[in-house]
């Protein structure tokens, strides 16, 4: 098989003012060359195909959120403010029939069905929406929470699905990248089923997706900008500070959040400031800018138990700017969440905002390309990723060890090749933690891979590394590895954020 792959040549992230759904400040677009991203689309298609779910010409369907109904229908919340129920979206071929359940809402960026009603996050509130007369259309719209303010148009809200207790977690974008001009801008709030609002965390800049990992722990996706050197997936730790201090002015309002944290220093490092600002939660999985997307968006846990291939329980996260889906593994080490991200699938038709696994083991994705530069050509699209049944040769996951990492593969490696330490090119770096917009990669180191032990089944390699750097992204270049059938990895890069090194 011929595969052509191109990795972005530049290892530096350029701190340009990139506008994406959740990080806009000025209409002056710094246009970028977007052609040729990972360059793996053709090879990926052999394992995961992308199928269009047709949309009638009269329907503008800019998906902002998804959920499944107990009767097997797909529910879609749209940027235009509709909630659509879809029959036949999972059929082969897709034979969707769209039904409008509710309309007129303000950007439905969170949708969750529970106990006979939708719990909907729209821009101004979390709303419980029900169909009381049973005619298939919503007639009761109950405001559960609206305790946040607006001062600037770019104050998007993103909501989770219901957690096991029925709470919706809402992440509120700052007023601008640098300010919190209205109440709770830059905060995450928990909305209980009976409408109580519980402040969870400060420090949010510009979220674009909220949800749990397979362990049920709540995360949100954050984009590159002030106090965020690169985009990341962050753990919404109750009582935590997510990194951007503009939201500190609302500590007086929620007493249960405790005293206002001390201000982080600018032009520092997250690793240094986390020792000073005890509430600061290290960014769990950092996505190096441009190598791994530019604007993270919605994400979903693979709950398909293998029907989507070898990545059960992992997170799949979309990117708005580049229209790609990436893969994430998370683990808790010394009480801190961290993990790795991997390329997965590119060439979606539009900028992605939301993802949803289906009962048939497919991944539904959707979004729009409006407003910000987006690589995908279509103004909006609904697409479905299907596993072809062929297992790609991929790094399935990476786990931190006291003296290195354990790499698990989807198929056996060539054991001789994988036993050679020169096959593992490892570099580390971090980003400047600062008020300025984004950061290049800094403080590069090249740790020494001293040993590579391959398991008997060829599925696991333990690499012993001298020179692990706490707080750094550890970037793996595994282009030298081969499967037992002599294939290269479908994606040969992986990025592990080592916030904590496990104790021996």
């Amino acid at each position, binding site marked *: *098989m*011929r595969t*052509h792959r191109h990795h972005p040549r530049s290892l530096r992230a350029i701190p340009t003012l990139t506008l994406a*759904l959740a990080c*806009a400040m000025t209409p002056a*677009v710094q*246009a*970028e*060359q*977007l*052609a*040729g991203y990972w*360059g793996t689309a*053709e090879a990926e*298609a052999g394992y995961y195909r992308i*199928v*269009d779910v*047709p949309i009638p010409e009269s329907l*503008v369907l800019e998906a902002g959120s998804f959920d499944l109904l107990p009767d097997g229908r797909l529910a879609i919340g749209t*940027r*235009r*403010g509709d909630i659509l129920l879809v029959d036949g979206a999972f059929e*082969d*071929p*897709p034979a969707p029939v769209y039904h409008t359940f509710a*309309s*007129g*809402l*303000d*950007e439905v960026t969170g949708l969750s069905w529970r106990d006979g009603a939708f719990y909907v996050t*729209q*821009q*101004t*509130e979390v*709303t*419980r929406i029900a169909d*009381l007369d049973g005619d298939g259309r*919503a*007639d*009761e*719209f*109950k*405001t559960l929470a*609206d305790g946040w*303010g*607006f001062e600037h*148009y*770019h*104050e998007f809200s993103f909501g989770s699905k219901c957690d096991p207790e029925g709470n919706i977690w809402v992440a509120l974008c700052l007023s601008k990248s640098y300010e919190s001009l209205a109440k709770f801008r830059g905060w995450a709030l928990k909305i209980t089923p009976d409408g109580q609002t519980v402040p969870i965390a400060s420090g949010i800049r510009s979220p674009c997706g909220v949800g749990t990992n397979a362990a049920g722990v709540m995360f949100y996706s954050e984009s590159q900008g002030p106090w965020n050197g690169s985009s990341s997936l962050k753990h919404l730790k109750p009582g935590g500070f997510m990194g951007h201090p503009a939201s500190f002015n609302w500590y007086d309002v929620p007493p249960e959040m405790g005293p206002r944290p001390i201000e982080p220093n600018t032009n520092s490092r997250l690793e240094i400031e986390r020792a000073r600002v005890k509430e600061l939660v290290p960014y769990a999985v950092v996505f190096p800018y441009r190598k791994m997307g530019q604007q993270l968006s919605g994400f979903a846990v693979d709950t398909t138990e293998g029907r989507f291939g070898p990545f059960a329980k992992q997170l799949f996260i979309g990117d708005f700017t580049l229209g790609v889906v990436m893969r994430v593994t998370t683990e808790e080490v010394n009480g801190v969440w961290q993990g790795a991200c991997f390329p997965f699938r590119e060439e979606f038709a539009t900028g992605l905002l939301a993802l949803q696994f289906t009962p048939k083991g497919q991944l539904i994705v959707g979004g729009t*390309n*409006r*407003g*910000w*530069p*987006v*690589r*995908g*050509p*279509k*103004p909006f699209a609904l697409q479905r990723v299907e596993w072809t049944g062929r297992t790609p040769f991929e790094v399935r996951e990476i786990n931190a060890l006291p003296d290195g990492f354990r790499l698990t593969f989807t198929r056996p490696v060539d054991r001789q090749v994988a036993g050679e330490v020169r096959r593992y090119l490892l570099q580390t770096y971090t980003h400047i933690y600062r008020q300025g917009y984004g950061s290049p990669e800094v403080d590069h180191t090249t740790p020494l891979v001293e040993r590579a032990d391959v398991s008997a089944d060829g599925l696991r390699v333990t690499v012993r590394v001298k020179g692990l750097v706490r707080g750094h992204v550890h970037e793996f270049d595994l282009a030298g590895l081969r499967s037992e059938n002599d294939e290269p990895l479908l994606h040969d890069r992986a990025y592990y954020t080592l916030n904590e090194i496990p104790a021996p």
Partner: protein
Amino acid sequence: MTSDTSASDPIIAGGKWRARSVSVLLLAGLLMSGVTAPAAVPPFVAGVETLPERTNSFAGRVLITELSCTACHGAGASLVPRRGPDLSQVGARVRPEHLHRFIADPAGTKPGTTMPALLEHLPAPDRDQAARALAAYLSSIATNPPVIEPVLVEAVSRGRKLYHSVGCVACHSPEKELAGSVPLGPLAEKYSHASLTSFLRDPLAVRPAGRMPDLKLDPHEAADIAAYLLREQNAPAPTTAPQPDLAARGRELFATHRCGSCHTVDGLLAKPSSTPLDALRADRAEEGCLSGRHGDWPVYPLSADQRTAIHSALRERQGPSDIGEEIRLTLARFNCVACHDRDGHGGVPEVRDEYFTTRDPNLGEQGRLPPALTGVGARLQPAWLRKALVQGARSRPYSDTRMPAFGDGEVTRLLEWLPAIDRLPAPPPVTFENENDFKRIGRELAGTDGLGCVVCHTYKDQLTGAMGALDLTLMAQRVTRDWFHHYLAEPQRFSPSTLMPAFWPGGESAKPDVLGGDRDRQIEALWRYLSDGYSTDAPKGVHREPLRLVASGDEAVMLRRSYPGIGKRGIGVGYPSGINLVFSAEQLCLAMLWPGEFADPAGVWTSQGHGTARPLGRARIEFAHAPELAQLERIETPWPAAEGRPQDLHFEGYRLDRLRRPTFRYQVGKTTVEDAFVDQMNSDGVALSRTITFRSADAGDLLVFRVATATAIEPVAANRFKVGPLEIVIAGDTVVTQIKAGDLYELRVPVQSVNGKAVLALEYRWPLSTP
């Protein structure tokens, strides 16, 4: 092209065989076999049929790969055999009766097939038995045999239309039989609708060689075309029960007959085991595939021309040819020449021209016919060329005929060859100071105030004018900078039929004031601008479609968005009677009222959504954006100043009635309010009835409702007031107080509850005479 033996001089190696003798022998062989003779149509190889000369070594070299000679007779990389379909799932795809018949007599079953007869050495009864065993084996390795189901008549007619437009008839015959077409064979006896549909959806999975390319049919299109192709399918023949013993024997036969030289089963492919092609000696052709005799070898019913051509190629031996020749061979093998012209060869023939159609006749012939491949190696970016060939990437959505995907097999060799041979001189170097400024100029040139590229070309799929030529945002991803410069300078030189005007005739710019009128700098500015692809800002002329959101039928329509003067918590409602309101979920008040159409949501539904929803219609009344309900000491106590979001007000949502008309629900202090708005159409105008129900367990201070604030309020009759064109009627015997507060007049009513409940009914009337 290499020299060849002409048809009029058919002497071949050693002078021993003459074409005439070959024909005689062939005929004799056929007569001797006595089975396939009447039906022995020669194998059809499309790329040879269209050659001006079909007997030379060039034709022979095409035949050698297309008949898969080199699958058994190993040869170098320039003669990679086409091979046959993958058979792992043939039992799920093809009905067993057809398999049996086809294996026993390929050319008789599918005249023109390139599959040779493999069982000709056997006496007829044994041959039939062997074919039956092979068919049983192949059927046994798939779990789900095809099931025949009737096809829908509508699907047949849709499929007919697709079949005759998407590109099938570039190679295959249209419904009206056309000679020189790749045979389809008896599809109705071969496939089920489901199995043909799935084959058409992904032909490369079964035929990785790419000779049947993937037209990228969506599942519905594939099903429709399959329905058309099977339109005459009758009731199914009885399916035979599995015969394990027969299948086991078939499996042996599959191996002994070296079927695996051409066909894969679960990825296994036999290595070439016959005499290598190089060592074949034409003078020993009394036996074997080329002899025309029937024996223990693959029997091809070759035509005399085909035999001559193959002999000619064998005699010349296959040395490394020049790249140009290799390109021509590949274009013939993949039948690219059926659609594309390159250097004057190939292109859509007149008899098939009518099947190449366009959705946009404005674009002329360019909108309809596949582009020429002359110079394509210098025209297309390597990555795009690969996408086009391997994945069937399309850039011409207006053309009904599609570029198919050929897969990543032999066709990819074109990716090395084409750029190596197609060259354009580099355009003159261009200097500029600031790249962003330069790009801005490019954007101006692309817009309607510049050269107006957007008038004909789409921008992110949006039409500006009436024409939808190649998308601007795809340009730099597709074509090379060199070609862009040369083409823009002289479009007609590259595409004689193009409608694109020359913008720099004689080197003179149509925009002499931009960049000093310098052609190369202007072209380069456009190129730099377009290089940003999808992330560019739209050039002038690409405009948003105006949006109108109005009530449809007898139902109201709602839009919760930012409204001017109200902010983010506006809830707009458009009523079918032609009256509209915005309720503020922040101040809990009726904030705006207007007659006519509802709203233009463009400000919130386009771009980032950073604007406001704009009420349509010219007249509107804006009330104070402040709470309507307050607890006061006395009815004339100054109204509490509104500052930001009031603390003791809580919006609780709304219910919609059957016609989607809202009843808002909110809490003001200890009072719960239900606030229903219902439209009415009267003979003299439109009206909105508002029924406000207050409930409070706590009888505290005086509760006052402020009906209106305005610079002028004119009493008309008892409890009837005019506010501008609007008339407000307060029902019942409610005492209305009009007071002046600053420059404004206010109408206030006390909320008088009985047993903790009060109801206030208001009507807002807008006379028809008012615009």
